[in-house]
């Protein structure tokens, strides 16, 4: 099942650890917040993705099973 990385933007305070551990999928914008590749995580990066999720000091990064959820109102 496709897994995607998602960040909870309310919890995220821009530590930037995710971008260091997973530069293939996460970049930091000019304010230090993560821009995440919306495509499914390739299997080769799965372990690194889990490591990044565990390493986030704010626990803001998540790996979700569902498809891209619709934007909420």
């Amino acid at each position: 099942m496709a897994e995607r990385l998602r960040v909870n933007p309310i919890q995220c305070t821009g530590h930037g650890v995710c971008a260091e551990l997973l530069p293939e999928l996460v970049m930091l914008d000019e304010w230090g917040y993560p821009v995440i590749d919306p495509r499914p995580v390739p299997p080769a990066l799965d372990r690194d993705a889990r490591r990044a999720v565990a390493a986030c000091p704010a626990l803001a990064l998540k790996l979700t099973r569902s498809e891209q959820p619709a934007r909420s109102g």
Partner: protein
Amino acid sequence: MTAVVNQTASGGAARQAAAGLPRLLPQAPEDLSAHLARYGPTPYRGQPNLLIADVEASGLTGRGGAAFPVHRKLAVVAAAGPRQGRKVVVANGAESEPASRKDELLLRLAPNLVLDGLQLAAEAVGATEAHLYLHYAPGPQILRALAERASRGLDWLGVTITQAPPRFLAGQEAAVVNRLGGGPALPTFQPPRVSERGLGGAPTLVQNAETLAHLALIARYGPRWFRAVGTSDEPGSMLTTIYRPDARAHVREAAIGTPLRTLLGEGADVQAWLIGGYHGTWVPMPAAAGITLDNASLRRFGAAAGAGVLAALPSGRCGLAEVARVTGYLAAESAGQCGPCLNGLPRIAAALAELAGPGHRRRTVADLQRWSGLVEGRGACNHPDGTVRFVRSALTTFEPEIRRHARGQCSATDRRPYLPLPDGLPTREEDWT
């Protein structure tokens, strides 16, 4: 603020009456007796699925801005959570879009329609709690309506009234649930959607007041009646709040698919239309003069009806000044919870203020485009997305004016502000409760 007048028919009155308009707004406030005389009692079904099927057949979509199919929301809430568990329904009358006046008017003139809809929706999903969420303190009409209904035993559930703070985001559904739970009216991260886990963890239906009024009528007259006006893909009517230079601001019910010319005028000295409010889209005139009030037509200009705010900007005003003012408001109304929105919107607003003045740095427009791309989709709600849509469409529509301003000129002759904005921006935590 100019008083908002109910304008249910003007010119084409015969056409409208034959087409079944007006449906929602009486000429004067109707108390319970008048309401019952006109509509009869609330047509409770006795079981949920019948009403949901009718709503699906009618094609009713939300009138709060998102235009989400109502039957689907009802079905999700009805099915979510444990059997016999708590379930909540909320009539959303927060009307946080400052330019919108339709819900306020509806709740003043026909509160019983909205309250009927709330009770019918409650029955349809099996709710255990009902709430009415209002922007302002409840007026005498609403209080009287609730008291009369209670004394006659018309309501399936008692209704709790909660006041929303005057914030742009206060009507966002997660913010509604947050506020009803005693917290500030701030959006929360979804998933889970409030229809699955909302107030106190219970599945919560948040439905716009106007949507509930339509639902109350569909329950009485059926889906075919509802579809008698509108288009086949987007049936029914909607309330619009109209701003045009040759009239006072007013609310008008219109069949979906009505040419915008009918509502906003022929546009002789109008430079642009704003469709869908402050998260909406600017379209240039006369290029867009042929659009009709249905999303299929509006989509071709990247627009959507939203909560029905329609504004015609006169040629003598400075479009950039209006956009800068509104974006400043939108930036100040950010919840400030998400890094991209918190950082991006103020910068976007400042750049627009620069464009609204004489001359601007060469990089300002490029910065605007970059920041717009950076904030889109990266907040917990769609505030940055809506703001970006407003801004991007403005950059396109007012591009000639941007070039004029760069040369130190401005085509405006009238410097008065045109689009309405409330006073008072939020600075403290209390401003969100």
